[in-house]
């Protein structure tokens, strides 16, 4: 079974803080994704990574950066958290082989920025 874990289920931060959200996979998957989910807007892609140290911007990268130093770990960084970054953050991976279009999601991190 594919397993995707996220470092926190709930997080409360103050405006201006630097926030790290971490995603860890237990298999040798190349593609990893960060989304944010807001009511009425569905999931929007922030960044994705297709290999170690490789990254590509998604649809809403502003205010975020990412880091992928090891294949199993993909971090989302909010350089200076703002209240409009209060959201549910979801990490996903794709599996190599025939099911590579399918995405497997972590449980999500609900972030509140005060």
């Amino acid at each position: 079974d594919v397993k995707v874990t996220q470092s926190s289920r709930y997080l409360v931060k103050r405006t201006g803080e630097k926030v790290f959200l971490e995603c860890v996979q237990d298999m040798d998957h190349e593609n990893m994704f960060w989304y944010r989910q807001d009511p009425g807007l569905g999931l929007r892609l922030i960044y994705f990574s297709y290999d170690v140290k490789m990254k590509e911007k998604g649809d809403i990268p502003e205010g975020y950066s990412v880091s992928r130093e090891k294949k199993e770990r993909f971090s989302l960084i909010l350089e200076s958290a703002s209240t409009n970054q209060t959201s549910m953050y979801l990490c996903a991976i794709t599996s190599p082989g025939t099911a590579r279009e399918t995405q497997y999601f972590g449980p999500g991190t609900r972030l509140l920025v005060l």
Partner: protein
Amino acid sequence: SQQGEEDPQALSIQEGENATMNCSYKTSINNLQWYRQNSGRGLVHLILIRSNEREKHSGRLRVTLDTSKKSSSLLITASREADTASYFCATARPSNDYKLSFGAGTTVTVRA
């Protein structure tokens, strides 16, 4: 950018009834996928249908795809309380099939 749009936004049905939800999209696709999300959790993949397929089944799920109308439907037959969840369609474009565009979802409530 949001490619798929689900309809209706919310659906409430009695246990045992069928639930149907629709997804429309704007541009050409490689495949279309449906995901389920239970309250406050991550998404779970349900089914994938490719652009050259018209219908696919998986257990109590039936998905259709009409590329001429750029639309898809998901039917859940004989619904159960455990089917209460939000359902999302996601499209993969021909140029980049590992990036998905998700719709806003349909929230389904199955009453006992």
